[in-house]
């Protein structure tokens, strides 16, 4: 997994390339925590256009970010999810708490 972070004010944009499973979930969360603690980040936008796989360990990271940001008025948004990743997000109920859009522009 490769990770690119870009901070713009209170918004942190994160692009994840590769696969998001238990092998990388821990280091991803650590890196995100570091980025979020270094600045006054309130909103997290994930670019999933190059994320090929996600399972429940990866979803755990998304939920944990949401739990961190929601109480301080923040948000988590997922953009450009590939069809297989989008399906997993949908089935997990994630779109109930965060905005999710697919690479084709479908939104939940």
């Amino acid at each position, binding site marked *: 997994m490769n990770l690119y972070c870009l901070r713009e004010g209170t918004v942190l944009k994160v692009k994840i390339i590769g*696969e998001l*499973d*238990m*092998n990388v979930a821990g280091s991803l969360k650590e890196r995100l925590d570091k980025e979020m603690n270094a600045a006054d980040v309130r909103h997290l936008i994930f670019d999933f256009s190059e994320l090929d*796989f996600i*399972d*429940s*360990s990866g*979803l*755990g990271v998304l*939920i*944990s970010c949401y739990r961190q940001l929601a109480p301080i008025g923040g948000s988590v948004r997922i953009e450009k999810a590939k*069809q*297989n990743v989008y*399906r*997993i997000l949908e*089935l*997990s109920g994630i779109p109930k708490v965060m905005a999710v859009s697919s690479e084709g522009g479908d939104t939940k």
Partner: protein
Amino acid sequence: MRKDKGQIINEIMVQFTSLAENVALSRVLTSSVVTHWDITISQLEDLKVAVSEAVSNAIIHGYENQKDGMVSMRFLCYETYLLIEIKDEGIGIENIQQAMEANFSSDKQRMGLGFSFMKMFTDELEVTSEVGKGTTVLLGKKMPAVKGKE
């Protein structure tokens, strides 16, 4: 679960250490084995998620993230069915029914979706476990006719 599936055409068994990086390996193995059938990308993706969850469970819960356990994966290929057995010799599950409930997790940081995904993405799921001895998960998935045999 093995009854009424007909004759086993191919059987593959692989063992690996309970390292987190081997979860990706388990998905690659699954992808390779299913090339035997004409399955769609979406069916393959389903199976990869189910396998990923089962192997992650073995490592995270079975071996409590200890890196010296062994996880075994056995693929039983029938004409139009695939059985994948994922076995660990870890701590076992005391209450399987509770463990399989959606949103239940022994770890509060986790979503408790593992077994739900395994159920969702397979046609059959069987879990057997003995405390102190380990857990065996059987994932069953219907497969289309073998390439070139139609």
